[in-house]
């Protein structure tokens, strides 16, 4: 089982994700440069946080044109597991792999702090270890985390149980307090909170580690 961490110019949580997989989870992992077009041998791809291309246009709007993104779409089509965290989530939205868009936080400031989120669907490759309704403590760190989708789209998400994580108290204005969603097929997760920053008690919370562990368990069962 092998993890890949995509590196876009401007990614800055790539090393943190790599560290969690390699040193905490102790699974094989390697970096994938954004111009790569071959994902053979990978079981799971992580799109890390950061400011790809500086986010000078709209967060993720340039990164979605990176050659690796087409390959990731194929990879997911074939059932590969993809997780986009923070900027990675924004890129997945821009690429159309997940529905919706990100607006500037309602307070118009960058926010970095711990938040509580609730597990809304424990039947995904990313949440199998959690209990339904479990409360997790995880940090957020973003300018544009105000998730938006029209009413019809949101109703669809809710009906299909695509909302995986919800904020207990909405920090950024997201519709329906949404913190993380999956695609219909359930193998692509996008989330604004940072599980890689909450995978060790030394950092204040270990709640995020179980996302990665759930993925490992799910992939192992699939084999």
């Amino acid at each position, binding site marked *: 089982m092998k993890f890949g961490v995509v590196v876009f110019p401007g990614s*800055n949580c790539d090393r*943190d994700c790599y560290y969690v997989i390699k040193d905490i989870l102790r699974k094989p992992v390697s970096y994938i440069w954004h111009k790569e077009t071959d994902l053979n041998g990978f079981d799971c791809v992580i799109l890390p946080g950061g400011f790809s291309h500086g986010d000078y246009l709209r967060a993720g709007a340039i990164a979605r044109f990176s050659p690796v993104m087409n390959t990731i779409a194929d990879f997911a089509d074939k059932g590969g597991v993809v997780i986009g965290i923070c900027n990675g989530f924004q890129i997945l939205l821009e690429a159309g792999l997940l529905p919706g868009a990100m607006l500037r936080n309602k307070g118009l400031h960058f926010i970095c702090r711990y938040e509580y989120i609730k597990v809304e669907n424990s039947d995904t490759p990313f949440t199998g270890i959690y209990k339904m309704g479990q409360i997790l403590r995880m940090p957020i*760190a973003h300018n544009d985390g105000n998730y938006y989708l029209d009413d019809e789209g949101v109703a669809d998400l809710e009906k299909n149980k695509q909302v995986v994580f919800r904020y207990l108290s909405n920090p950024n204005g997201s519709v329906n307090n949404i913190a993380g969603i999956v695609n219909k097929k359930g193998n692509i997760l996008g989330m604004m909170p940072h599980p890689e920053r909450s995978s060790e008690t030394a950092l204040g919370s270990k709640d995020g580690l179980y996302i990665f562990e759930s993925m490992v368990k799910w992939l192992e069962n699939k084999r």
Partner: protein
Amino acid sequence: MKTEIYKSLGLTDEEYKKIVSVLKREPTPTEIAMFSVEWSEHCGYPRSRSLLKLLPKTGKYQTLIGEDSGGIIVDDLAIVFKMESHNHPSQVEPKQGAATGIGGIIRDIFTAGARPVALLDSLRFGPLTKSYNRYLMKGVVDGIAFYGNCVGIPTVGGEIYFDESYTGNCLVNAMCIGVAKKDALVRARAYGLGNAIMYVGASTGRDGIGGCSVLASREFSEGEEKRPSVQIGDPFTEKCLIEATLEALATGHILGIKDMGAAGLTCSTSEMASAGNAGIEIELQLVPKREAGMEPWEVMMSESQERMLACVKEGKEDEVKLIFTKWGLNAVVVGRVSDDGIVRIKDKGNIIAEIEAHALTQAPIYEMSSKEPDYINSLNHLDINSIAEPKDYNKVLLKLLGSPSLATKEWVYEQYDHMVGTNTIALPGSDAAVIRLKETNKAIAATTDCNSRYCYLNPKRGAEIAVAEAARNLVCSGAEPAAVTDCLNFGNPEKPDRFWQFKGCIEGIVNACISLHIPVVSGNVSFYNESPKGPIYPTPAIGMIGIIDDIDKTCTQYFKKEKDIIILLGICKEELGGSEYLKEIYGLIKGNAPELDLELEKSVQCTVKEAIKEGLVSSAHDCSEGGLAVALAECCISNRGKMIGATIYNLPFNLRKDALLFGESQSRVIISCGKESFDKIADIAKKNKAPFCAIGECGGNDLKVVNNGEELISLLLEKLYAEWAHSLEKKLQER
């Protein structure tokens, strides 16, 4: 050459004469521009160098003193750090001024071969009652967030203080810490005949021309338009530059590398040649430019950001270029190393400057005259009996907690990504930031400190206190204080009363650092911080790092457990001079700075260190601005998730009640511990001869201070928290 030309560049008649005698001819326009920046206070330190030599360079850890930064060795790691000012650009254009200040200090760290792991900022503004000061503070915070968040280096700590003297001249001092394997360090040097001089990073434009000679080396006068001298930051390019540089350095092909910060190409060519005892010859036509028609001197003076100059082994140029190209960056051979010690600048093959590198970098040294300012005598005299004691101490405490200098800076640090890198063990809001060193069991603790009001009232003692307090903050987090970077912000050194302040502060830093055995490994001098209303308070910001040997023994300031015993180490004296209390409650800036007994300081610090190391301590907090009452309140409320109250019933000090609660006596630390640890801590204090007293107990949902049967303070934690947590944001939102 016409007098107006060199005068407009900030050079004096004497300096011009000296340049002519060094060159043995009239300088060219490019040469005079180069001298003007290299001999400016910003680059050449002509007015401060002789005093800076007094700062101690050795301590408990092996020290590293590089060209652009310094550090210490811990096992096989080098910890490199430096603090630098970007005051004048921030006063002119706060967002870009602060942003490029961050960019510049980061480059000083990764050009040493170290990966930047943390940023801290020491900021000073005028009172937030003035709208321009609010604009400045919001802009500076925005600029730090814009740049620091994007480059992915956590901003983990710092300080913000407010005082009228900074109206018209705010201070933005940025500190960066980096970590490298000790044998991976590189210097800012060029050497080896025929080796390539490569220009890497962003293209050169007209931004920031003359920034360091014009902005940083003169006072502000009203109505001047200086905006074109402020540079524009591009954190995305910087992020790529960090990754590309560290990747390129790992090849071993780069012999030396230097940031093109202040005075751009001028500084990097002359200082790299001088440091390597070599010469450099470059052709300006080869320099990547983003504007057409730039004059040669403009190319030499440009302060465009995110650029560096590297000395690359002959024959390895293409390999290095490939790495930078991968990251979308320029990497161009613009010249070669020569062996004649001359910096030779060509444009289309014509020599436009030819100067001995050492002549450029050895700015003249000036003996400055110094005179005690008139205000010292009158302000130092404070008749304490003329100050009425307040009737309601609760009100005073709430007012102090809500004052912008003491209120929590959560509104600020929540806008900074302080967790990226997954090393931040102690989140902002405690005495010191703590950054773990992955792959070891150790951590770095870092803080910045300076009470400039103390320095104004007594420069020497104020600076001593800044050093002692920084060390105390680190000790409270469980660290051994290891080394200092100083960012020395003062007024115009050509005025004897300002220079007297500078001299006093240097004496204070030297004295305290020698006594506490802490070296000064890097730093920066920023003079001419004046507005038409006068100089800023002398502000020698002390950035200090310490080492925690076992991350499991990291300590934070807030109370942890009900029923824990609260202990005060140190002595409360009747000292109200220079206090936040006098300023906030009576509008008085008067008296002398609190006394500092460095022997007592050491006793207290040793006790705290030992007790934390033995695992006996639940919390430790330095007692500083706002005195005992504010420190106790902070212990109770600074962990919002789990606030714990306290009852203080034993304060065996025979003092005025306001001095007892709000006096700012030095060398005091509040610790809390379980009952089982009490005797052991008492023994450690006794052994170290530290004054020791159990003053109360943790618990409940309020803070009570009872003295001789009289209840002086009784406030619910929620009330304390509300005042402390929300006042800064409220004040910033005023219109």
